[in-house]
């Protein structure tokens, strides 16, 4: 199937980048009347390797395809590598759920899983594979991986070996980009909300100018007045951000519920970690103190009569 790894990879990422649309493994359910067709061989467990291939091969079907096409375990489908051809009958022997893998998000195409020999025969690509996965003895340590790679690539003739971690880095580029985007948006939002908080807190303190004037006239020192103003702003900021964190937590629940439904994945989309909550509270505390100090500085430097009279 995959003789074009670069293009395919590019296109897969295009999809992950939410920019292409559905691709379908050619599949065609048989007409309804033949749906509960005869089950031959060992339909419940034909994917266990090493067994003799049954007459009608079993396939595993993606949960999504199953629910969208109304396919159940035991149903007989026709499977072909070429659209428009009749294909061969196969029996659905298992339903599979996709892993909570971010790279699976937004891949809305359906999948079926076949035995290697089955797929090779079906697609006419006898004895061909896209890749081998090789496990190195765990005791050998990470250095063994490198020496194995070097050894393989030295004699490689028509293929190349990569360490899984390098592949992971390569294939996570999409998520790095999304991550960078989220960070950028997050940065902008933080700046925006910081300015917003600063504005609101300053205005709220300004609102108290008459009270401050009264305190000053009553003989309280600038220090005391300033401290009380700052303390008030800080308390308001902390209470506000705590309430905000609570709202945020509810929002993560809604966001997760929504996107898990939309993308049909168990993946967690939004996560409120204690660190994030702490960051929010600390940031607003800081802003509260800054705003309070600014306002207090302005208020205590203005003569109380000016504050009152205007």
């Amino acid at each position: 199937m995959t003789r074009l790894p670069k293009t395919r990879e590019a296109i897969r990422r295009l999809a992950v980048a939410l920019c292409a649309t559905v691709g379908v493994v050619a599949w065609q359910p048989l007409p309804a009347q033949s749906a509960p067709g005869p089950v031959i061989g060992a339909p419940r467990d034909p994917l266990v390797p090493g067994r003799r291939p049954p007459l009608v091969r079993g396939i595993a079907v993606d949960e999504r395809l199953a629910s969208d096409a109304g396919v159940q375990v035991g149903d007989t489908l026709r499977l072909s590598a070429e659209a428009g051809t009749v294909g061969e009958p196969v029996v659905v022997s298992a339903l599979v759920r996709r892993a909570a893998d971010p790279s699976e998000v937004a891949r809305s195409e359906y999948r079926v899983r076949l035995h290697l020999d089955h797929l090779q025969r079906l697609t006419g690509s006898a004895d061909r594979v896209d890749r081998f996965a090789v496990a190195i003895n765990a005791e050998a340590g990470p250095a063994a991986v490198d020496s194995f790679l070097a050894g393989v690539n030295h004699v490689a003739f028509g293929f190349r070996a990569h360490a899984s971690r390098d592949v992971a880095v390569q294939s996570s580029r999409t998520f790095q980009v999304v991550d960078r985007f989220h960070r950028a948006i997050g940065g902008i939002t933080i700046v925006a909300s910081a300015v917003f908080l600063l504005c609101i807190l300053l205005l709220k303190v300004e609102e108290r100018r008459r009270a401050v004037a009264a305190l000053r006239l009553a003989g309280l020192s600038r220090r005391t007045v300033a401290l009380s103003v700052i303390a008030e702003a800080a308390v308001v900021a902390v209470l506000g951000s705590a309430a905000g964190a609570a709202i945020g937590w509810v929002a993560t629940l809604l966001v997760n519920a929504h996107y898990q439904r939309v993308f049909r994945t168990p993946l967690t989309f939004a996560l409120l970690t204690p660190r994030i909550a702490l960051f929010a509270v600390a940031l607003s505390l800081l802003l509260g103190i800054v705003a309070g100090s600014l306002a207090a500085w302005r208020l205590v430097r203005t003569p109380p009569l000016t504050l009152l009279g205007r």
Partner: protein
Amino acid sequence: MRATLAWAALRRHPMRTLLAVFGLAIAAALLLDMVMLATGMRASFRSLLTSQGYQLRVTPKGTLPFDTEASVGGAAALVASLRSHPDVARVSPSLGTTVQAQRGEQAVSAFALGTNADVQGEYTLLAGREPSMPADSTIREAIVNATFLTRLGVSLGDTVDLSTERSAQLRQSGRRGRVVIVGEARFLYVPPGLPALSTPLGALQHFLGTSGRDRMSLAMASVRVDGLDAAAQRDRIERVRLWIETEHSRVTAISTETAIVQVEERLAYFRQLAFILGALSLVIGVLLVTTLVSLSVNERLGELAVLRAIGVPRAGVLQQIMLEGLMLGLAGITIGLGLGLVTARWLNTILRDFPGLPADLDFFVWSGEAAWKSLAMLLIAATFAGAIPAWRASRVRVAQALREEAVA
């Protein structure tokens, strides 16, 4: 006079006003960015799809253009059949595959596109000329993209070896050929980092041997729509589309509109993010203006009562205070416009780094109408944010407020 009063009220507390304007500017920038994001990808994708005038894309059944390496056989007959439809003006078949390109020690794997220069809608020629179809079988001429040139260290006029196998080291099997680079092109749908080359369709089919014989991955069809209004155009395209799908069971025909709708579905995340953040920035803007104007109104209740006492009508007070919101909004939006464009450009460069995206696809696209609408919305919101405190101020009981002012 009301403008003078409003302006004077804002100038009375410059620090406050500046902060509010800055806050509004950020809200406006965020709103603008989010509108650009929400509408931009769609617009960008649309212009990408429609740039060459093809409204229909015909692919192996159930696939999207080049989404898999699926191809259909009997390409020539299929194309002939499409061309026979009276409403079809042009058909451009193409075949995509990956080849190994080598020159000296340098080797890269490149996307090879077989297409016919006279009808192709895949690339625009930047330099050199279109490749010609060789009389015999092997590929003779190709055009390539800039990445191909730099990655392989070649230039126009150079000769490059091609093979179908992943590694050119493999000698026994695989098809081999040799091409002269006759032109440089920008490939519309190929990611900028991917080396690409294009040859005439027949040449590529032949080069691939049995696996390429009379096959294509995609045919783009242009439907005659001259002189039709939008609805009639859509109708005719849809009729042709249905005709193709009923006539040829092995293929799927997708109209540009459908493709865009499907893209929209995939873009839901960005649109929703944009919607939420946009709404949030609107709320922020409104809250800011409301707080500021409320405070300023509370401070000035006496003054406003005096205005009412000397004969300024309720509407006058209302107008004056809403004018303050409007002025704040205008200032904030003006600054926010610049700020938004700068951040949009920055965010766009971040997202353009997505591996595998066509070079011409943008996430943030400036659209005068969208920007105008969103900023007008913010402006109206800011103006009406002042309305609640303004309304309260305009309802002030004059005699009562005069007394209170005397006490204060």
